[in-house]
Every structure is written in C-alpha cells, then in structure tokens.
C-alpha cells in the first residue's frame, strides 16, 4: 500500500503530525518555501528565557514536507535558541530514518523556517 521508500516514521509524522496548527499569540514566526512551487511552511514560536517553550507549524506540501516540518518542530521543542539554530536538514532526515533521494530537499524547508523564526524573534527582542 505505501511506497517502500517512506519510512514508518515519515508515514507516522504525515498521518499524525506533531504540533500542527496556528499560534495566534506567537512570539515570532518564520517562513520558508514558495506556494507557487508547491510547498510552504510557517513555524510559530513561543519563547521563554531563550528556550523554545512551544512551537507549532502550518504546512502546504507533499508527504515529505509534512513529515519534515513535523519532525523539525519535535526536535526544536524545548531546545534553547542557540541549540535550535544548530539543527540542520540532515538532523531532520536522520530523525525520520531517511527520505527518498528526490525528497531530500524537503528537509531544507524545516531548517529554513525554524532559523527564520528564531532570527525574527531575536531581531524583535534585541
């Protein structure tokens, strides 16, 4: 039924994404992707004492886009801003157990939006 190319973790994050939804009282938000190209991610942060207390995301995109976005937020939640800034697309792919070669680029979406959100937060507060 499922492509053998998607790991169980990817499928799980696709069918039951963690932290999906908007955050009206977010401290900052970050964006990546381009809806005209078929993917768009927004990440919302709630930060306390430079720790990501809460994080949510909204995504328009394929299975890999949804899964990588979900995993990004799961990895980032509870980290300090500095720790979160060090997260790379490779970390995300590893945490998912891998992605098909033609979908690897989707993981950049998560890293980008997270960095954008953190940078926006820092710009606002410093």
């Amino acid at each position, binding site marked *: 039924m499922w492509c053998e190319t998607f790991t169980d973790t990817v499928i799980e994050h696709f069918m039951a*994404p963690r932290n*999906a939804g908007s955050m009206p009282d977010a401290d900052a938000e970050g964006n990546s992707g381009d809806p*005209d*190209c*078929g993917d768009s*991610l927004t990440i919302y942060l709630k930060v306390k004492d430079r720790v990501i207390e809460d994080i949510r995301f909204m995504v*328009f*995109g*394929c299975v*890999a886009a949804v899964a990588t976005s979900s995993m990004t937020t799961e990895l980032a939640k509870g980290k300090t801003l500095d720790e979160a800034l060090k997260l790379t697309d490779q970390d995300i792919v590893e945490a998912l157990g891998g992605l098909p070669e033609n979908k690897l680029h989707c993981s950049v979406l998560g890293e980008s939006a997270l960095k954008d959100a953190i940078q926006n937060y820092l710009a606002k507060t410093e």
Partner: protein
Amino acid sequence: MKKRVYADNAATTRLSRPALDAMMPYLTSEYGNPSALHTMGREAKLALERARNQTAGVLGAVPEEIYFTSGGTEADNWAVKAAAELGKNKGRHIISTQIEHHAILNPLLSLEAQGFEVTYLGVDAQGRISLKALRDAIRKDTILISVMAANNEIGTIQPIAKIGKLAKEHKILFHIDAVQAIGHIPLDIQSAGSDMLSLAAHKFGGPKGVGALYVRKGISLPSQIQGGGQERNLRSGTENVAGIVGMAAALESMNARMGPHMEKVLLLRNRLIEGLLRIPNARLTGDPLNRLPGNASFLFEGVEGESMVMMLDLHGICASSGSACASNGHESSHVLKAIGIPRQLSHSSLRLSLNEDNTDEDVDHILEVLPSVVARLRAMSPVWNGSRENY
C-alpha cells in the same frame, strides 16, 4: 482489510476478462514465433492476423492500416516522426496543442531542435482548442496537425471531426492521439478524417506494453524499427502475440459494451462530481459536458496534491494528482497551466477516473473519505484562509 477503491483508470485499467481469456493460450501452450514455418508458428501468425482484423474492424479501418507497437508512446513517437520525415520537403511547420501528452510534446521538441517549427495551439478555460485559431495557424508549409482526442488530466474532448475536415481541406496529415479516448467514447476514423491514430491497450482493459498505430492506406510510412522485417518491414521485432491478442479482445469487448458502460460510468461519475463539489472551494477542471465519461478532475484550494493522493491511499483509494511533487519533478501540470490555473492552485489538483469496474459503493467510499482528507489538510495549511472545520 481496508476497502480498495481504484479510481485511477486514466493511468491504467484492470485486464478485462475477455482479454485475459484470449491471452491465456498464448501465454501457455501456443507460444510459437509468428515468423516460424512450423505449425506452432503458423498458428501464432493466424492469431496475430486475427487480432489485426479485429482491431481494424473496431476502428473502421482495413488490416493493412494497423501496425502493432509497444504502446501508445511508441505509436505517438512514430506518427510524429513519420509525418516530419514524409513532409520535410514540402514544409517544416507542425501544429499541435499545449495540452498534449508528453509522448507527443517530447518528440515535437526533438523536431524543433532539428529545425522544425511547431505551433502549440492554446486552449480555453475548459481545455478546448479554437477551430478559428487552428485555421489561422495553418500555413502553406504545414505538414502535420496532431491533436489528442481527449485529455488524460482534465478529460476534455476535442472537436476531432471538425479538425479532420480542416486538415483534409488543406491536405495536411492529421494524427489523433486517441490513447485516452478509444474504448470510452465513440471514435470513428473515417468521419474523424484522420490519417494516423495512436492507441494503447492498457487504457481499455488490455495488457500493458502493447498498442497500435493506424496509418491510412496510401501513406508510405517510414520504418520505426529495423530488423527481421515484421509489421511489413516497418516495425521489426518478434511480435508480442499474447499482448496483441489481448488488446484486440479488449478492444472488441469494450466497443461492444460501450453504450451500457458509458451509461453506468456517467451516472457514477456525475454523482461523484456532485458530491465533491459540495466541498468548499472545490473546482472541476475541464469541459463539464464534453469530457471523458470516467474523468473527475478537481482542484481543492489550499491542499497539496501528493498529500491528498497519499492520504487517500491510506484509506484504500487510488487516485492521482498533477502537482509537481506527485509527478516527481518540480514543474506542475502543463495542462493546468494551459487552461489558466495559477501556479499555486495547480499543485492542488486531484484526478479521479472511474470505469465500468467501479461501483456505487466505491463512489460512496470516496464521498465519505475525501471531504475529511481535504479538511484535515486544510486545518494545517498556511495558504488556506477558509473554514478549518470538518466537512
């Protein structure tokens, strides 16, 4: 076991019973090479020619006008290249459309690189070409008009007979890519006035890997594959006897049952469309009236195509999408672009294509599942501004 609903018949169809039954002897005991002199060879040859007669009969052609190929793509490639070869001294201008299948577009691109000029006729919002635009595009050096009878993505049917008439008036070779149309809508070569026509078995209950090119008698078709001399020395290679026999049987059977099939499929498909259009911001693409009976192609704003397909798959429903991700590339559907769909929305396409195998229960299941899939994906979509409640 989850209920399986196969709604991707435009991609391929189940091998029909008549096709399977016809093929079996040629997959088991009747395995002779049609070129062999002994009994087994002669029987295979007989089966081959019987299949050719059957195919010609359904199309309203004569057997010498039927050439068996490995499928629709090969037939399309052959037709386009043959027409270019035949006409190159008269002219180098070809007319086709912006919504052709890649099996036509890519050979045309190749010809353009060789110095041919191609006019790709635009289509209106429903996917129809304008006969006036076609007439205006015709030049003294036009040597081929190639138009698909019906589009695989949005189902729109073109006014083939009128195009044929125009082509005849100007003495221009006319090729019809009938791959999606054959077996599903009545298509009469003579009244369509076509000089060449492509078809593919697996779109109408035949096996994959076999198709045919019809070429009107009198056209001296250049060869496609050289070798042992099969297909009147124009398309060498030991014939796929089982496949060809299966194709002919499928074609005959589909043609015989076309009326009741169309009736059944139309009812199912129209109920499906009606139900799905109740989803907010859902749009049917293609001509609402002149469309393939089984085709229900949609745009669901705010939702990405591959995600829809995969979520539907988890509910046992097989469908397809023209989104960039779904087609393994970075470009979304050229057909949706041609009918004026903005880029973002073009990633939100979903194609359901029914056939006579589908049932009321299938339609019920889709109507039960798809609205909630759309709602679920919209709930987390940053590009959806409407209600995020379940439908």
